[in-house]
Structures are given as structure tokens and as C-alpha cells.
């Protein structure tokens, strides 16, 4: 059985790369929080903040050609799969230089060239598409897999169960990844779920299952790598579930503890195990100098600030852009 990663770099380098990606996503979203009140980014933001370790860890276990299908909470998946930060901000600002020339916004970030195929704003809607992509990869013998991210709310939807069943019965290389933040907008799991454990149920399917309560990006990467190895060996799909905590409101850039459906104490407890703090401490323990880390963080800060500055002054799409792409356009 071959390991999923080709020529793995040393653990130190990989740990640093994981941290850089986590930091980039966190800082990018902090910039969104900073500039959103200017009302120039007119797109509903579903922030990844607090949940970044899952897409970063899982995407680190994927190969370049593997494909990701994301939900509307897609900032982290988009950047973790290699999406460019300049096109990311340009898209949020609705500019011609964005990923889809401003037509997609935050909810539909996509960069197929990087393997980030789509982000979908209707819960569970990307999951069936990932199953079909996996079928094509299997049929064509590409060795690629389809990885689909969704929240625990998606498990309330029929499309999730239909897709899981189809991937199991057709033996397709789909990596199902549940970001279990326990909330559908503000509705808690116990109001929605007539069962005790999702993973217990899924373990009865012909599917590899793993669940973890962790914010450790390295643990998540290892879990994903293990699942991918088992998938390749057995030909069956895998389902991963990671508990996490959404720091901000469902949509928007603010905290929402004043609404009373969850407490600040919970947040503070999760904040203690924040994925960035953990990974940064690991790097310091492994001998990475504080000075070097700060310099690296500053570089990222500057690059992101430049991306924002450039996006702000970039031109909006011309009116002809409206009609472009309704149907396939031959290059």
C-alpha cells in the first residue's frame, strides 16, 4: 500500500506549511472583519474562523489533482486548496480580477485549476456532485479522489444520505468530511437529529469512518491520510467527522453571544484550544525562533494587505460579463 503523499517533506517543514496556511486564512478573515463595515464587500460572509484546522489538515492530505467540493463556509477550503489570496479578495470585492469576475462572491468561490471545483450555498448540494466526480475518476483511472466538505446540518438533508449510499454501493473514492460545529444557523443538533451518533449510523455503511474531537491540524491531517490509505486499499469511500466551534455568527463577521443560543464561556473554552495557537506552540517547541515566526507572519500580513489594497481599486466587471459563461465558451 502506497502512502497518499508523494515525497513527504520533513515534519518540520510540513508543520510550518500547515501553520502558514492556517495563519493566512485567519488573517484574511480578520481583514474581512476589518473592512466589511466599509460596505464595499457586498457578499454574505460565512466565516470559517474557528474551523480552519479541518480544511487545512484534510487538504494537506490530498494530492494536487484531487478535487474539493465545498459549502458556503468556503474561505478556508478555498485557500487551503491553493486558491490565490489576491483573486480571493478581488472576488469578495466583486471585481473583474476575482475568481469568477465578481459573479460568485463569498458563497461560490471556485478555482477548478487548483481542484477547488465549487462552493454551494444550498446545504448538502455539493455532495452529489463530488460522488459523480469520484465516479469519473474511477472510470478514467486517474487515481484522484473527490473530497467534499459540509457541516453537520447537511446530514439532515436527503442528498447526504443518497450520496453516501451511492458512493458505498458503487465503491467510489469520495472523502466525506463533516465539520461538526453542532449548529445549523442557530439550531442545535438535538433539535434536528433523531439519533445519538451520526458516526455510529455511518459505520453500518460500507465506508471507512473516523471521528475526532480535535483542533490539532496535524492530527486532522494524519486522520485524513489514514482514511485515504484505507480508501485506496479497499476501494470504499470514507467519512470523517471533526467537532469544531464556529467563532462568529452564521453569516456575517460579528460575534453573536448576546443572542443567547450559545454562551461566551463555551467560546472561551474552545479559544483555549484554538488551532493557530496550538500549531504555533508546536513550532516554537520544535525550535522555530519567535523572531523568524513573526517575520513570516509579517510577510503574510503585508501580502494580504496588498491584496486588499489592489482589490479595492480593481475595476468592476463590464456589463458584457453578465452574459458570459451561461453556457460553455470554447477557449
Amino acid at each position, binding site marked *: 500500500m502506497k502512502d497518499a503523499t508523494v515525497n513527504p517533506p520533513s515534519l518540520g517543514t510540513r508543520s510550518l506549511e500547515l501553520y502558514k496556511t492556517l495563519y493566512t486564512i485567519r488573517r484574511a478573515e480578520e481583514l474581512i472583519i476589518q473592512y466589511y463595515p466599509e460596505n464595499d464587500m457586498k457578499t454574505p460572509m460565512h466565516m470559517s474562523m474557528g474551523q480552519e484546522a479541518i480544511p487545512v489538515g484534510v487538504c494537506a492530505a490530498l494530492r494536487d489533482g484531487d478535487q474539493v467540493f465545498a459549502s458556503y463556509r468556503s474561505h478556508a477550503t478555498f485557500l487551503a486548496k491553493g486558491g490565490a489570496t489576491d483573486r480571493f479578495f478581488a472576488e469578495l470585492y466583486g471585481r473583474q480580477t476575482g475568481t469568477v469576475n465578481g459573479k460568485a462572491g463569498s458563497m461560490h468561490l471556485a478555482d477548478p485549476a487548483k481542484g477547488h471545483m465549487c462552493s454551494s450555498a444550498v446545504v448538502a448540494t455539493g455532495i452529489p456532485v463530488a460522488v459523480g466526480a469520484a465516479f*469519473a475518476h474511477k*472510470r478514467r483511472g486517474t487515481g484522484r479522489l473527490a473530497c467534499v466538505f459540509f457541516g453537520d446540518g447537511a446530514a439532515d438533508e436527503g442528498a447526504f444520505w443518497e450520496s453516501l449510499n451511492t458512493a458505498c454501493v458503487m465503491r467510489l473514492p469520495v472523502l466525506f468530511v463533516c465539520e461538526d460545529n453542532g449548529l445549523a444557523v442557530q439550531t442545535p443538533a438535538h433539535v434536528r437529529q433523531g439519533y445519538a451518533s451520526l458516526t455510529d449510523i455511518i459505520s453500518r455503511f460500507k465506508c471507512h469512518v473516523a471521528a475526532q474531537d480535535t483542533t490539532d491540524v496535524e492530527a486532522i491531517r494524519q486522520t485524513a491520510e489514514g482514511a485515504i490509505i484505507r480508501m485506496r486499499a479497499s476501494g470504499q469511500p470514507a467519512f470523517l467527522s471533526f467537532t469544531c466551534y464556529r467563532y462568529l455568527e452564521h453569516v456575517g463577521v460579528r460575534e453573536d453571544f448576546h443572542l443567547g443560543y450559545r454562551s461566551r464561556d463555551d467560546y472561551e473554552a474552545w479559544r483555549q484550544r484554538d488551532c493557530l495557537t496550538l500549531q504555533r506552540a508546536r513550532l516554537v517547541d520544535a525550535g522555530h525562533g519567535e523572531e523568524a515566526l513573526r517575520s513570516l507572519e509579517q510577510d503574510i500580513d503585508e501580502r494580504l494587505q496588498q491584496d486588499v489594497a489592489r482589490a479595492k481599486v480593481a475595476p468592476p466587471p463590464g456589463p458584457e460579463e453578465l452574459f458570459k459563461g451561461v453556457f460553455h465558451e470554447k477557449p
Partner: protein
Amino acid sequence: MRSRSYCEALNEALHQEMARDPSTFVYGLGVPDRMSVFGSLVGIRERFGPERCFDTPLCEDTMTGFGLGAAINGLRPIHVHIRVDFLLLAMNQLVNMVSTFSYSTGGRLKVPLVIRAVVGRGWGQGYQHSKSLHALFAHIPGLKVVLPTTPRDAKGVLIAAIRDDNPVIVIEHRWLYWATGEVPEEPYTVPLGEGQILRRGSDLTIVATSWMNVEALKAAEILQRAGVSVEVVDPRTIAPFDERLAVESVERTGHCLVADNDWTHCGFGAEVAARVSEQCFGRLKSPVTRLGFAPTPCPTVRVLENEFYPNAEDIVRAVEAKLGLAPSDLSGEDFYSHERRFTGPF
């Protein structure tokens, strides 16, 4: 002339395209079973194997997204539904994902997905096995919708749909499966977006869809005997809809009747009426008339079903009213010849 049935024409198109292009595959509920989707898939599984012709779990929505995922990754899926009504289970994938996917990539990704769906009628099909819904699909930007009427078109349209790099919904009327006509043996395409004139005439234009073309041609034959020359225009593709053929015809005749195989309210007939009225306003000698299903669910019992569906008799009467002619004697006419072949249950 090489004569084939509509069903044989569909089957020949699939055989030829699947032999030509190994990226094609056909799937759907019951697709490989002994009925072979009313015969249209005869020999496909035997010839191309279970990997390219297969059954699915009962999940139309997911299997539609499945087709999309396969289509954006180099395959050309053909998803088959034995009734259009089942497509309603797939509306989320169709309208939220399939129709928007190319747009979501700035047109860079292609979605060569074909969805075949059969319209049922007669012998108690009732209100969940008889819908056409083509206006519903045609309302959505990003979807192409085509309704072949003749055997020649069935083959050419299906080949064009398979070769198209966009999602195409092909709506096939169950009763047309028995229709026979000239079908060339070699593969050919009937371009999507182009209509055709099924019968030339000079006094009045009937724009008809799917089965209603059969009724329109029958009505035209009857009216001819009364000295009325009717032109029958079959748009074939209703999305994208090129209205020029209908408009040019009405410019010549001055009268337009739309016979749609669907409900009239907010339907394709209304679209044709609007476009013809917009473009032929000064030349219209009468307001555009629409015929379609009664505004009710489709009843099961035959006597009510006959009231529900418009037929050639209704067309004749509507034309006579438009032209101010006295009602002719239709007592000797045979209006439901095709239905006699259909003794159910499906």
C-alpha cells in the same frame, strides 16, 4: 427511404454515439432492466457493458448531481427518466447546480450532461405520470430543452444533445415512440435551437410542441378539406428558443395558434404568443390563440382525460372560430389512432 420508429431512432442514436465516444454512458432507474426504457435502450448494455449502462439507487436528485460531477470530469453522461414527473425530485441539482455550474467557472468548465425524460399519457397515467413541464425547465437559464417530434429529429436531436457541451433536457413523448418516418442510417445532428416547418400553409400558423404536432397535422389535414391552408411550425428546441421561424410564418399567414403539450398558464404557449405579438403586432389579423392542458391535474379516468387534453378537434374548432368559419362535420374523423396501440400499463 429508410423508415424507422421514433424509438428505434433513439436507440440507433445511442448505439452510434456510444460506439463513437467512449466517454459516454447511460444510467438511471431501471435503465438496464428488460423493458430497456420502452425499447429505446435495446442492446446497449449487451454491447457496451455494465460500466456504461447501469442502474442506480432510487435517488434522482443525487444521481443528477452525479451526472454533473462526471460531466465536469471528462465524461458524457446520459441520465434517463421513464417519466418527466420523476425529474421533480432532481430540481435542486438541476436548478441550483447543473444550470449554474458553467457560469460559476466563467464558462471555463463544460457540462455535457444529457437528461432524457419520457412524457406519459393515457391508460390511467394520472397526475404523476403525465407531465411534460418543459416550460418549467426552459425558464431556467443554463439549461437547453428540446422536444423532438419526428423519428428523424429524435435521432438527430439526441446526437446533437450528446455532443453539446452543456446540459440538455430531451423530452420524449411516450406516444411518439411508435411514430415512423424517414431516418437516415449514418449519424447526423439536428442543430439545437432550430425549429422546422412540418407542413406548409398560407392561411394560419400553428406552433406546436411534441405530441401536439401530431394533432396539429391531423387538424391541418381536416382543415385543408374545408379550404383552409395551415402551416405547422415545430420549434423543437424551446430553450434556447429561436422565434424567427414562427414569426416569419405568422408574418405570412397573419394568424397564430399555439398548441402546447403542457398547461397554458405561464407556459411555453404564452412565450410564443408574447413574441409573436411583439414582432407581428401590426400584421396579426386575430389575437394569438393558445391551446393546452386544462388547468387541472391530469385525471386518470378516460372520459375526463379526454376533456383534459386538447386534440385535433379542439384545434379545428379554434381555427374555425379564429377565421369566422362555420363548424364543420367531424363525425367521421378518427382522432385517437395512436392511443389504440397503447394498452398499458405503462
